[in-house]
């Protein structure tokens, strides 16, 4: 890929006891592209996300984030430090704060972009906290309108439908103004109509310059939106390339359909 890479994985290996969940996985994600990670169940896709976002620490390998001149290593950083660098993520099994309202959930997304501390909350004459909360509120409102969840603002998150929760989680991730978005199966459980809306939304985000790394099972979503596809099987990368090239790759067909299909 000729474009400049934003995320660079080099020989990332993660083991759980005797099981190697990721073995020496390397690939790059170019700035402003949508890159999909696909693979059968148990291929290590979510483990890969957990390594990038700092939830898990890989035993070997390097993960670099940022453009070449100012690249940071992510290995060994805590999740909150990685979020601060500009990586936001969603979860396969949606992790919203169920007791809190939709608005509050999205406001928590702005946490990394605000600074008010304990004293700002106590000291009523500080303007920083006031300005910040105004800014955060504004941002949350715009995101809710964009994702068409503004009517739900005061509902507790746990009371929403699956599709609505997915959108709230996406809005929460976007509220942190990330440079890169990690989406773990964002289309799972969505209706055909919702899926189409999601694809349009992802394309719009790419248009705005956001880099997206996507885990997805549904090839009807992956193939049309992705610029690049990485295929994992049993923790190893077996292929990468444009969607068309990957679909024709014999090893990919084998991994998905078995040897007989060849």
């Amino acid at each position, binding site marked *: 890929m000729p474009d400049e890479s934003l995320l660079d994985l080099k020989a990332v290996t993660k083991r759980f006891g005797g099981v190697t969940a990721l073995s020496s996985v390397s690939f790059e994600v170019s700035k402003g592209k949508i890159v999909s990670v696909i693979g059968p169940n148990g291929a290590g896709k979510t483990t890969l996300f957990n390594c990038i976002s700092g939830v898990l620490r890989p035993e070997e390998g390097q993960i670099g984030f940022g453009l070449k001149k100012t690249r940071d290593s992510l290995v060994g950083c805590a999740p909150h430090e990685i979020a601060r660098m500009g990586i936001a993520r969603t979860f396969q099994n949606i*992790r919203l704060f169920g007791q809190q309202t939709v608005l509050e959930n999205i406001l928590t997304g702005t946490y990394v972009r605000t600074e008010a501390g304990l004293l700002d909350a106590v000291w009523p004459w500080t303007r920083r906290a006031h300005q910040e909360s105004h800014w955060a509120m504004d941002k949350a409102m715009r995101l809710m309108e964009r994702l068409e969840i503004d009517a739900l603002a005061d509902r507790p998150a746990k009371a929403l439908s699956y599709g609505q929760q997915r959108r709230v989680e996406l809005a929460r991730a976007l509220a942190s103004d990330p440079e890169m978005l990690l989406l773990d199966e964002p289309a799972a459980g969505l209706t055909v109509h919702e899926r189409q809306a999601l694809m349009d939304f992802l394309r719009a985000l790419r248009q705005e310059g956001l880099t997206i790394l996507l885990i997805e099972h549904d090839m009807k979503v992956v193939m049309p939106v992705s610029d690049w596809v990485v295929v994992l099987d049993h923790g190893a990368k077996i292929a990468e390339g444009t969607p068309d090239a990957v679909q024709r790759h014999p090893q990919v067909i084998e991994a998905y359909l078995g040897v007989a299909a060849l």
Partner: protein
Amino acid sequence: MKKQRRDWMPWTFLILAVLPFFPFNSYQIDVMANAALYALLALGLNVIVGFAGLLHLGYAAFFAIGAYACAFLNLNLGYPFWICLPVSAAVAGAAAVLLGLPVIRVRGDYLAIVTLGFGEIVRIVVTNLEPWTGGPNGLMGIGHPMIGRFNFGVDSRPYYWLLTALLALTAWICSRLRRSRIGLAWAAMKEDELAAGCLGMDTTRLKLMALGVGGAVAGMAGSVFAAKQGTVTPDSFDFIVSVMILSMVILGGLGSVRGAIVGAVILSITPELLREFAVYRMLIFGLLMIVLMRVRPQGLFGASSLKRVLHAR
């Protein structure tokens, strides 16, 4: 931000402030002062358990540290109460943070057990550190607060007003905190620590902040307690005190500022009202608690039950 629900505050505290002008006897005023003291403690613990979701069973330790700090500063260095008050709050807050550092990694019921242990350790250290704390006999002769030439003395009335003023201040701060950026982050962390971390929240730092605030409130309460009693002894800071304060917070509803105050008032006054039942007093008290928890597990004003804190993700 939504309209903040603090409208109840001015009226409530105004009524509380004029209460001593009604013909109560000195015993009743003393019960009221104690209720205010417990309400202050409940507000502080509510920041730790209710806001940040850290089930702490050793809260009386910070109360003790505040009381002993006040006594020590007054007796050995001759500081007046008005200097001892903020210093004890700072000392107790710092102690809460320091004692929190080693235990912050464990969660839910495990945290409860570790903090229980730490609470007991503090009490035992205080009992055995005789040259500094007077051992089991405690410290005596702590000076009462003075305003100008007016000495607070042994009458409970001025202490009641002082405690009510501190209570109003703390309640106001707490309700501002809850709606702040930090308060929102506490609530998020309480529900799902992993998701909170991935949103850029430094959960260790947030937990220590909650402990610091809660500890400082306990230290404040402790120093008023020391100045009011004139003596401090280790048995005032028994494990049962921690449990009592926690019960108040749970009864009122985890995370609710109003709830913590109402819970503290109910639980500190009920045993006094039940005095005529003599030996059955605590039995009736316990039954009332069980019934309440069956009927309203989330507490009087709360949204989440204790179960959620115990089984936090």
